[in-house]
């Protein structure tokens, strides 16, 4: 039993650390450190740097531009980019639609879409949730009706991150309203510039506008934009859920939050024993979670597919993120700074998105405890 990194892995870690320290633009680093909102160009510049290095798509097969890294190397890369204050690139193109196109799409689709996702030339968003379909995604109502060589899509998607920046959206739509609800769903790629696509920003309680509603009104899409087979969209969506790995715990991000919190306390000369104890409690829980992540990483390295244990990481990771945002606020009391309150309000989303923590508990109960 040995959770230490090998000498090669340590060397790789140093290489990534060095790369991030020297190549991440200073203004982007400052923004991320300060917790400021990033603009599209901030993400794009970092995306281009990673693309040129060949490091932008660690999860892809090598033949399409992946890195060929081991699970441990991918973990190290994720951690070091976070520790180095690099922005986390939006996952929708690189980590969500691309794996589906690779696995279930055809050669024409792989040739058409993958290079521009890799290069950052095209930006994607995810068309899943609807006003009436959140946790119960399978009850989605967006319709795709086939007429001659096109699908005509009608419906509303909501809570869509970065739709305002996106060139493309991948949409789960119902192609067969007669089939059982999971079985009538298809996975369709839609150009955001298609007539009938309207983006309306949603302002959130932190004052940001990172999410949107996307209305699809008689949007005509070539049938070639169907990925895989009609009626199998739900299978591809589930594949994605399993494909997403330990990243959702955001442990490196939590370490950054903690570091910032300690900085805040030192700079403001706050001497509060109760606060120190509350922080220590969260720190200890974070150490336990980080070790748990290493255990799942060890299992993955041994060839085990990522499983329902990732629900633990999601639930606890988001709880810790929220606790830290709360502690930062509590640290400054009545002087809670401009950056801290928005962060606290914004982080309420973490226990809701990517499968709410309640859904994650259902998963643990059903798939691990077999209740």
């Amino acid at each position, binding site marked *: *039993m*040995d959770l230490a*990194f090998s000498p090669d892995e340590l060397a790789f870690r140093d290489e990534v650390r060095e790369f991030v320290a020297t190549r991440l633009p200073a203004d982007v680093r400052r923004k991320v450190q300060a917790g400021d909102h990033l603009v599209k160009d901030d993400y794009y510049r970092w995306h281009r740097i990673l693309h040129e290095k060949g490091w932008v798509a660690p999860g892809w097969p090598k033949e399409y531009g992946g890195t060929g890294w081991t699970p441990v190397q991918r973990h190290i890369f994720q951690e070091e980019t976070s520790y180095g204050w690099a922005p986390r690139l939006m996952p929708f193109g690189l980590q969500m639609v691309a794996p589906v196109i690779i696995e279930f799409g055809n050669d024409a689709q792989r040739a058409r879409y993958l290079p521009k996702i890799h290069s950052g030339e095209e930006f994607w968003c995810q068309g899943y949730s609807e006003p009436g379909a959140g946790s119960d995604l399978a009850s989605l109502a967006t319709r795709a009706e086939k007429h001659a060589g096109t699908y005509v899509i009608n419906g509303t998607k909501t809570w869509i991150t970065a739709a305002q920046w996106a060139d493309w959206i991948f949409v789960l739509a119902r192609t067969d309203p007669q089939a059982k609800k999971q079985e009538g769903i298809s996975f369709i790629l839609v150009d955001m510039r298609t007539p009938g696509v309207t983006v309306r920003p949603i302002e959130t309680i932190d004052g940001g506008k990172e999410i949107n509603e996307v209305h699809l009104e008689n949007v005509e899409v070539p049938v070639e934009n169907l990925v895989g087979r009609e009626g199998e969209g739900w299978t591809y969506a589930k594949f994605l859920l399993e494909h997403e790995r330990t990243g959702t715990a955001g442990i490196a991000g939590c370490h950054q939050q903690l570091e910032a919190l300690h900085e805040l306390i030192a700079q403001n000369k706050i001497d509060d024993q109760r606060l120190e104890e509350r922080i*220590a409690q969260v720190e200890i829980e974070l150490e336990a979670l980080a070790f748990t992540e290493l255990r799942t990483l*060890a299992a993955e390295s*041994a060839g085990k597919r990522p499983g329902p244990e990732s629900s633990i990481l999601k639930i606890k990771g988001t709880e810790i993120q929220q606790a830290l945002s709360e502690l930062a606020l509590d640290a400054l009391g009545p002087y809670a700074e401009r950056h801290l309150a928005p962060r606290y309000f914004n982080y309420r989303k973490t226990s809701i998105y990517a499968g709410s923590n*309640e859904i994650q508990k259902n998963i*643990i109960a059903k798939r691990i405890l077999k*209740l």
Partner: protein
Amino acid sequence: MDFTLTPEQLLIKDSVARFAQGEHAGTDKWAQFAELGWLAIGAPEELGGFGGPLETLLVMEQFGRGLVVSPYVAQAVFAGTILRAAERTEELQRLVEGEERFAVAYEEPHARYDPAAVATRAVRAGDDYVITGEKVRVLDPSTANTLIVSARTGDEISLFAVPAGATGIAREPYAAEDGGDVANVRFEGVRVASSALLGPLGGGLALLERGLDHATAALCAEGLGLMSTMLEATVEYTKQRQQFGVPIGSFQALQHRMAEMFIELELARSMAYRAAMTLDEQRADPVARRRGISAAKVQIAKSGRFVGQNAIQLHGGIGMSEEYKVGHYFKRMSIVERLLGDAGYHLDRYLAARAASHGGQTIAAPARDPVGASAPTRS
């Protein structure tokens, strides 16, 4: 990156599991432990020793799963670690062979877990020392031939090996909640030879702390085992128990509660293993060791309380009956939580260790690397 057990470790785990799931109540199994080699864990190879903190974890986790009441932590882990650190090879050999049994008397009436709060004195008298003082909550003293006693020699603390039958020792046993052997022990002018000094004069606290850290890690492992059984029993029960025409395990409120118990169990599992690895990796750094062990005990205390309380709750009425096993596990967990340092004590210790490793500043960036990630790989 490897979280698997070696074949040898699996063998130990299986043989302890067999013992723990069998009939072990009541009788003293020390001779059996010696025979099975479990007293040799962590001892030097020259004495037939093998393994270390991870093997101790494997033993204690199974003991916890099977609710084994034994002097193993107090007499093998706590005392054994002290003897090993003090380089008392002869005593250690007798311990390993089951020939001599040692219990540790360190805590004092107002100490509240602090091993440095010692008023007991050992005064030099010719070639002897004379020990006077009061120790409380000595674990497993009745079967011990020798008590390892902490006492002040001048301003510092030293450890002495005191024959349990020496004149001037008075014992006041009391019934522990889990039926364990605990006593307060008074020393009135107890005379021992100067050869009874363990380790260097005035160097007792460091030895004691190392022993406490190893014993605490062992308790974390026991807690893990206790929690595992409590959760498993709870899940099983809710699948069987029917109310309103369905198994109560189908109710979402209970499912979510058990999912939360599972999460706490996994965090505890991680910290118990992390504690064992910390002992191996931080041999040379007592501050880092202290920080790792105290963090683990805080987590185990928290998880243990949550899993224990909810195990009783989800069993409903029968969870309260003395006949049913979950209550017994809960009681032992409540004791383990507080033995050798409760969550509050360890939280303070964690904070102090964290500050100490940053030159006394309160700014303390948490460890970025996983346990052992910066250390060179072991051969």
